[in-house]
């Protein structure tokens, strides 16, 4: 019988900065030699030279699974057929926990706190099995001021092993409140190619929504969230007003998944403080909220002329904030000149971008930006890619999918009243325009 995929064995975890030095490591299992890590950086460097990096590398029987965070590499090693997705999910979790502990995860913060780091590594994983990775719970018994809190640390928080492993008992607030943020990000790829369609066409678009909670509730409250989810209404037979079909829904571990599966009820005991309750994806075709047209004319050896038109295709009452249109320019461009009908534009040479910023962009309006750059007479030989134009924006009080929170029921055995506050925001995700001029 073979059950090789169940266990996971990143025998050790370490952080090596670019200085080729192992910062800290923890050998969880002892069957991969410590010296194996010496092969990691040469492998990585070879890959980078070839321009073909890969998150899994191997040397002999040892496999390196790594991620990079700022200037640190987090590397897990194994010599078994480990669960690779678990390893990466865990490495990202480690980054999350350390960031919450030390604000920044970087070389210095590791060195400054190496005792706590060791303690955390002990709690996060045992013998290659991830254990408690919820930083809020960890903070209850692993603290940065170890000596002072000696008393508190003499017992294991029951939360660690509870079925409700994300919330401690005995939380108290004077005023019980829940803040709900519904944030939708729009991913859009526009193709603007005279050969295909002079007016531009939407190649692909989807909406990724998230529901974030900030709960300030006492005790162990039971929450139920109601959305205008089409599947729910279809199930219950009620159909009032607009509903939304969610393509795929992902939940925080606090949500009872089988309950949702059976009757689409989102019921849960929330983590205290901030958390991401759920995310969803909607595939429906979205009208581009900010429509971009661009003409980029390049006159070799002399100059490049850029014209960008932006149009707000959303309700007149709404306003898009902090709109940023980022137009790629050739790396050897110089002497920028800009003219805008609103906002201001600047040249960011280190990123080879012209960035046009509009603080406030009302719906239905149309603006224009013209830019011109000089080009050197000696041409740059290097092939340059054709990066797309990207757009950032944020539209408050509005969801593009029309999703709404219908209710948030809060039940706690003490019977207190609590108020839910809801906020909607639509923002840009991967919002790109590929231009074929």
């Amino acid at each position, binding site marked *: 019988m073979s*059950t090789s995929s169940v*266990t996971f064995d990143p025998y050790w975890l370490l952080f090596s900065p670019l200085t080729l030095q192992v910062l800290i490591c923890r050998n969880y299992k002892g069957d991969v030699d410590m010296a194996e890590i010496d092969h990691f950086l040469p492998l990585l460097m070879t890959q980078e030279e070839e321009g073909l990096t890969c998150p899994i590398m191997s040397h002999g029987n040892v496999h390196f699974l790594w991620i990079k965070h700022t200037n640190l590499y987090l590397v897990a090693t194994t010599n078994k057929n480990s669960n690779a997705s678990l390893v990466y999910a865990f490495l990202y979790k480690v980054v999350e926990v350390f960031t919450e502990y030390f604000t920044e995860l970087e070389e210095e913060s590791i060195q400054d706190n190496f005792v706590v780091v060791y303690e955390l590594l002990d709690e996060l994983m045992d013998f290659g099995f991830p254990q408690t990775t919820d930083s809020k719970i960890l903070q209850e018994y692993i603290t940065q001021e170890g000596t002072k809190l000696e008393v508190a640390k003499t017992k294991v928080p029951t939360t660690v092993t509870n079925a409700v492993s994300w919330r401690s008992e005995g939380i108290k607030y004077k005023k019980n409140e829940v803040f709900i943020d519904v944030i939708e990000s729009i991913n859009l790829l526009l193709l603007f190619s005279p050969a295909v369609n002079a007016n531009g066409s939407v190649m692909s678009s989807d909406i990724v929504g998230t529901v974030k909670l900030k709960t300030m509730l006492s005790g162990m409250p039971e929450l139920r969230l109601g959305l205008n989810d089409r599947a729910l209404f279809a199930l219950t037979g009620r159909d009032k007003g607009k509903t939304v079909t969610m393509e795929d829904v992902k939940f925080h571990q606090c949500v009872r998944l089988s309950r949702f599966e059976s009757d689409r009820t989102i019921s849960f005991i929330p983590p205290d403080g901030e958390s991401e309750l759920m995310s969803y994806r909607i595939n429906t075709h979205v009208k581009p909220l900010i429509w971009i047209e661009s003409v980029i004319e390049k006159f070799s050896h002399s100059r490049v002329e850029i014209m960008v038109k932006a149009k707000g295709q959303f309700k007149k009452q709404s306003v898009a904030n902090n709109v940023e249109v980022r137009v790629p320019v050739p790396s050897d461009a110089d002497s920028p000149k800009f003219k805008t009908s609103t906002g201001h534009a600047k040249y960011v040479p280190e990123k080879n971008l012209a960035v046009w910023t509009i603080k406030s962009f009302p719906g239905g309006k149309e603006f224009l930006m013209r830019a011109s750059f000089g080009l050197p007479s000696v041409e740059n030989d290097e092939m340059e890619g054709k990066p797309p134009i990207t757009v950032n924006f944020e539209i408050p009080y509005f969801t593009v999918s029309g999703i709404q929170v219908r209710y948030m029921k809060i039940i706690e055995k003490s019977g207190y009243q609590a108020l839910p506050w809801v906020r909607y925001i639509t923002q840009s995700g991967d919002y790109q325009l590929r231009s074929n001029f």
Partner: protein
Amino acid sequence: MTDSKYFTTTKKGEIFELKAELNSDKKEKKKEAVKKVIASMTVGKDVSALFPDVVNCMQTDNLELKKLVYLYLMNYAKSQPDMAIMAVNTFVKDCEDPNPLIRALAVRTMGCIRVDKITEYLCEPLRKCLKDEDPYVRKTAAVCVAKLHDINAQLVEDQGFLDTLKDLISDSNPMVVANAVAALSEIAESHPNSNLLDLNPQSINKLLTALNECTEWGQIFILDCLANYTPRDDRESQSICERVTPRLSHANSAVVLSAVKVLMKFMEMLPKDLDYYGTLLKKLAPPLVTLLSAEPELQYVALRNINLIVQKRPEILKHEMKVFFVKYNDPIYVKLEKLDIMIRLASQANIAQVLAELKEYATEVDVDFVRKAVRAIGRCAIKVEQSAERCVSTLLDLIQTKVNYVVQEAIVVIKDIFRKYPNKYESVIATLCENLDSLDEPEARAAMIWIVGEYAERIDNADELLESFLEGFHDESTQVQLQLLTAIVKLFLKKPTETQELVQQVLSLATQDSDNPDLRDRGYIYWRLLSTDPVAAKEVVLAEKPLISEETDLIEPTLLEELICHIGTLASVYHKPPSAFVEGSRGVMHKRLPARTGSGEGTECPDVGNAAGGSAPEAAPSIIPSQGDLLGDLLNLDLAPPTTTGPTPSTSGMQMGGMDLLGGGLESLLGGDIGGSPAMGAGFGAAPAVMPASLNAPVGGGLGDLFDLGGGVGMPMGAYIPPKTVWLPAMKAKGLEISGTFARRAGVIQMELVLTNKAMSVMTDFAIQFNRNSFGLAPAGPLQVLTPLGPNQTIEVSLPLSTVGPVMKMDPLNNLQVAVKNNIDVFYFSCQYPISMLFVEDGKMERQVFLATWKDIPNDNESQFQIQDCHLNSEAASNKLQGSNIFTIAKRTVEGQDMLYMSIKLSNGIWVLAELKVQAGNPNYTISLKCRAPEVSQCVFQCYEAVLKN
């Protein structure tokens, strides 16, 4: 104040100073000192000299200090095992501490100290901790059992910890359950037959309940464990699927992938007409798509797995093409994987979009990505016939860009398009020829040369083009040289008048000036073909080519099934079975998908795919009759990989060399005239066995005719060799087909094997092993397959056998059970050998001895057989039998009946005496056999029959 100050002490006498501080009376100073020690340890300094001093700090109330000391112990205990004993008492004491954190810490740390002496002391505390009232301690102790098992498996079993661990699966606390499952799975992995997890409907139900309550990581352990279970029937399968599907909504990508693994596996059992089957298919697509919004590394794992899923069940994602479109800022490894999946999903319905995207990618700057995009366009053309024209025109557009690597890549794929759609797009050849000079990569040059040769009659200056390549012939890579040779021969056959000189030139370059045996051999073959029979040459060289398949890089089905069972793991990322990259996993059972069953026939399926269930080994029962412990023996064989330095089997010189090379068709001709062509012979003698691979298939077939010149079957009178039979069909061995026979040549028993690779991947690392058998047959050397066996390649191997192996009586007596291993798996088959190959050369008995022996053997041991329809006279029969070491000792004629007395000696020293009655005009012989071991008589009789009738 931060800890970083601890890293800065580099003064002289540091160790000495630390020693003093560690022994200080002040608690605070002690702690500071321990921190400094740990800091030094972290940066790799050797502070093991402080061992006793640090251990002295162990007894403290300060939890932080204790943790640091424990950390130190874990690091250095192995290098100082004797001193580590000093720590034992504190450990044992700490395991009784009122504070559960300390109890857990102690048991966790003890498990990490891999020192035998310590483990002995660990047992009692561990036993208590496994039953601790605090779940935090229990969950830590559960993992500790796995740690201890890793150090001393026997101890864990003797102490009954495994049973305690199994009990923990029913623990009230979900985290304890999860860790118990993880620990048991880990242990089970190293003990494939232990059936530790004992998965049955009841335990599965417990796991499914725990699934709803434990942490995300616990859910992964449980799901991965569930994936090893094989449900009894489709109903159970469906009910598990129903309870697993909610996990698809988990925010953790790893939970989702593990759930996908369970569903993909169990789905296999559901009838396709079931409504639920369709529902499940629909439910799988959205979570797979959402995985593409995860972090890039997780996306990469997801994409590698989606690549498998798309091959296994294309219907799941067939409408999701767009999500695989490449984003400008995707990392390169994500881009390349997306491209692969796009091609797999390409269909008539979406091809226009796909092509537009691919064309876009082909103008990017990343060379590898661009190359793959161009190649993808070609693959689309081959896959979706309706799009071929558009693809070709897109490729021509790309060639116009004159970007060197784009042009080369395009030419390589256009060659394939020509193969797939002959006589359709040749109008573009002119454009291709324009770019001849810019080709500097072997693959592109070879492709171009192939095109020129293939369409020589339509290219006016084909001879000039090819001649231009010929100038630097010796600087070209083998690939180009071979292609050039073939192309010029093609050209010659098409335009013989103008190109005679050219073909002479290339043949002499290939045969006389080259050191490359492949090239030389191909040259000689063409040369002889052309000089003996140009018509045959035309048929061979210009033969119609088999169509190339649409999907060129599909994973071989059995491997795909196995990989589906490993979704989410490294195997699924590498697209290789775990046995290919995990040490010590050889012989570990391969996972398989369960068989589809109707609900009524649930009882029939347990044999298939219950690798997870653990009891029955996976060896297909139909190949080897299950013989209890015997089978076990065979499965435990340690198959050594082939050693390249091992002794070469004693093949009989030239003849065998020729056989290896030329495959089945020529075998019967070898006795003939091959010696007549010394040049040829030399070529063969030197060539490695891979040659057939570099020849096009039709050429191989044609060779039979060529060599028929030698005339007729010239088999010398020799030992009887049964015809080859298929022992292991390809479908039972993941594409490896083995046929063969046994022979005795010059006193050496040989197993003559023909290995054919009918799978799509290359096979390597062949090895062979026999089970114990009646006459102690065993391989006398390793299986000599020195070169990888490519798809559709065949290789013949002679394996010399010895008779000194372990003996065990088989039924039938001449049954032989064989295990053959390659890089993919281990396969088992059984075959029967003619006992005549065990007849030794010195089997001629003295007459006197014969008479005495005949009398001496009791009559009960005599058996009589009839051989029918044999038309040889006694003289001829005697000669024939002698070839197989059956010796006639005397002959007597009584009343027109010839009585032949014969003796046989088996390799193990058993004598068989025979009396053969041959009556003139009567085709039926009577034979009496006498032997002290009468069991062999039946087999010996069979040999008589076989020898006389062949």
